[in-house]
């Protein structure tokens, strides 16, 4: 299971002194579902293109199965890609799109008179047919063989792109924001489908997305990137529960990020009040960032809570209420099923495992305040699909 397949060793990518990837070190195991997650321009697509062979790193090495592949062109790599906008061949029907990779004659080394010789090998028509039909079955597109790809819906085109990439039986499938252009519901369906395909085929998926929910739902390992650097690598649970810095905490889910001081192991001070927590190993009185997830806050009577604040806004979200509470001028987001009208005084209680303490970083103080709550929410809504234009711009 956990045999290392791909390794990026100290990879740097820069264009005219503009550093896009800053010393990336990363290994990917066989059969792993790994997600590169980050905002546009963070370097995730560049990383994917380096693995795919479309870019060569300015410095550093790429290894595949222990062999350095920096200079191996894309068509000689055991890696296939599902492109952002699918890149289906418009002049070919569904069947021919999927068969494309199988029709290409491959060089194969054969023994001839005791010497190794290379010759071109073509698959038989029957084998091509079997494999195409098998793949169309995997992606649920049986019966669509003769359709023109332009006559397909976005979700169907997506499936063709996946089938086309998988038909060559790659060891690794690279997916560049494959669900970005689909609507919400279809995206959810395809997430499950991709997961199923990955399990069934038993291959490694390297998945690029800016959608944190998608990343958490599908991945074995999440790599959070920003400004060309890896911010954190871990399981979805690790990333969510133990974010390394304010950027990760803010990017993954909702979080209230507060200034605090670590008074002792298991004791953190916020707003001059001491809270029990589970974090250890900080210097005495070390200033820290404290993350409190909106769902980890219990609302209690004003008198009996650890903190006391005033509700300033309430939004009904279906399962819960998004409640904005003002504590000494700092606004928190609390997600609760109890309705507290705006203007009411409440107390809150936070369990020790609801508090996560992080060391200060360059991101401290940038995130986590919900004073401008409503605008921020709109922004999040708009940011539904942002293609990585900045990164694409570097290809030429």
């Amino acid at each position, binding site marked *: 299971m956990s045999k290392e397949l791909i390794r990026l060793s100290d990879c740097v990518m820069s264009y005219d002194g503009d550093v896009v990837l800053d010393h990336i070190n990363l290994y990917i195991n066989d059969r792993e579902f790994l997600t590169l997650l980050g905002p546009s321009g963070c370097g995730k697509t560049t990383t994917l293109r380096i693995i795919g062979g479309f870019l060569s790193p300015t410095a550093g090495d790429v290894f595949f199965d222990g062999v350095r592949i920096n200079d191996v062109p894309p068509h000689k790599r055991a890696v296939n*890609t599902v492109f*952002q*906008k699918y890149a289906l*061949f*418009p002049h070919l*029907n569904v069947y021919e799109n999927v068969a494309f990779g199988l029709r290409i004659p491959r060089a194969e080394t054969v023994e001839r008179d005791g010497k190794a010789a290379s010759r071109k090998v073509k698959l038989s028509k029957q084998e091509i047919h079997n494999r195409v039909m098998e793949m169309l079955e995997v992606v649920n597109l049986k019966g669509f063989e003769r359709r023109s790809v332009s006559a397909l819906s976005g979700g169907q085109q997506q499936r063709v792109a996946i089938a086309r*990439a998988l038909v060559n039986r790659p060891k690794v499938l690279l997916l560049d924001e494959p669900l970005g252009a689909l609507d919400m519901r279809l995206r959810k369906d395809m997430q499950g489908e991709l997961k199923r395909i990955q399990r069934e085929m038993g291959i490694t998926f390297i998945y690029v997305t800016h959608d944190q929910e998608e990343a958490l739902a599908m991945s074995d390992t999440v790599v959070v990137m920003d400004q060309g650097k890896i911010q954190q690598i871990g399981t979805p649970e690790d990333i969510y529960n133990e974010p390394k810095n304010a950027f990760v905490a803010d990017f993954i889910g909702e979080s209230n990020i507060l200034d605090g001081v670590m008074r002792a192991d298991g004791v953190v001070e916020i707003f001059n009040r001491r809270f029990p927590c589970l974090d250890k190993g900080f210097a005495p009185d070390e200033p820290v960032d404290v993350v409190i997830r909106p769902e980890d806050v219990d609302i209690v009577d004003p008198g009996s809570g650890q903190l006391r604040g005033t509700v300033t806004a309430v939004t009904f979200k279906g399962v819960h209420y998004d409640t904005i509470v003002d504590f000494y001028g700092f606004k928190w987001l609390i997600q609760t099923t109890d309705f507290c009208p705006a203007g009411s005084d409440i107390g809150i209680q936070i369990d020790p495992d609801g508090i996560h303490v992080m060391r200060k970083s360059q991101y401290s103080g940038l995130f986590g305040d919900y004073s401008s709550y409503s605008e921020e929410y709109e922004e999040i809504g708009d940011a539904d699909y942002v293609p990585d234009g900045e990164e694409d711009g570097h290809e030429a």
Partner: protein
Amino acid sequence: MKHKRSLLALPYVGWMALFVVAPIVMVVVYAFTTAGFEPTASNFTGMGTYVSIFARSFQLALIATVICLLIGYPISYVMAKEGPGFQRVATVLIMLPMWVNFLLRTYSWMAILENNGLLNQLFDAIGLFDLINGLFGTDLTYFRMIRTQGAVVLGMVYNYLPFMILPIYSVILKLDRSLLEAAQDLGANSAYVFRRVIFPLSLPGVLSGVTMVFVPSVSTFAISRLLGGGTHMMLGDLIEQQFLGGAYNPHLGSAIALVMMLIVIVCMWVMNRFGQGEEQAVVL
């Protein structure tokens, strides 16, 4: 809303009716009447005499088109692959001759190809004729270039090459780069990518290029007159003679023009059908 839009279209409908439909109707009427405007089909029945002119016109136009394609496609391909700076310069260089009057360009070729023209003077100056005469014991003082079919084809290629290059270039330029990457990703080397992706997807450009070279070539009269010296009469010359020349007979001229138009339309139709089939046939 719809009503308003159709009102806006009126001037264009009027323009088309006046300058496209009406002339064609006139050509048809002339073609089927005698000088006294009596209905007749004799303009067509007597056309057998001109078969050789038809054949020569289509043959030369076809040769010119094929040469344009063979020269134009690689140029378009290279241009589309190069950077924007190269593309700007190349586009201007290709367009530049078109800013000079067509007749002027063709007269220039006369001056170049004449028996004592620039090219022969150059050959003389570098001692080419002396060399050949010395080797083969001949008595050459010039190459006969003007007043040959070759010169006519050269004139066509020179004048119409831009019409081949530009459509192909713009189609290749607009090809989605990610399609090429996808093909590479699936294991195709660059030759395979060209054969199975770039070329089939550039066929629409090739088709419009071929049309834009073939149609004016088949009906040209200035090129064949000036560079062919009137010895290789083409359809354009024949039609022109019926309207302006000594053989004044606009009714016959219209009939010839009509037949030519029909043949061209049939050619284009067949080619378009073939082209559409090709896109799929390439892969099957």
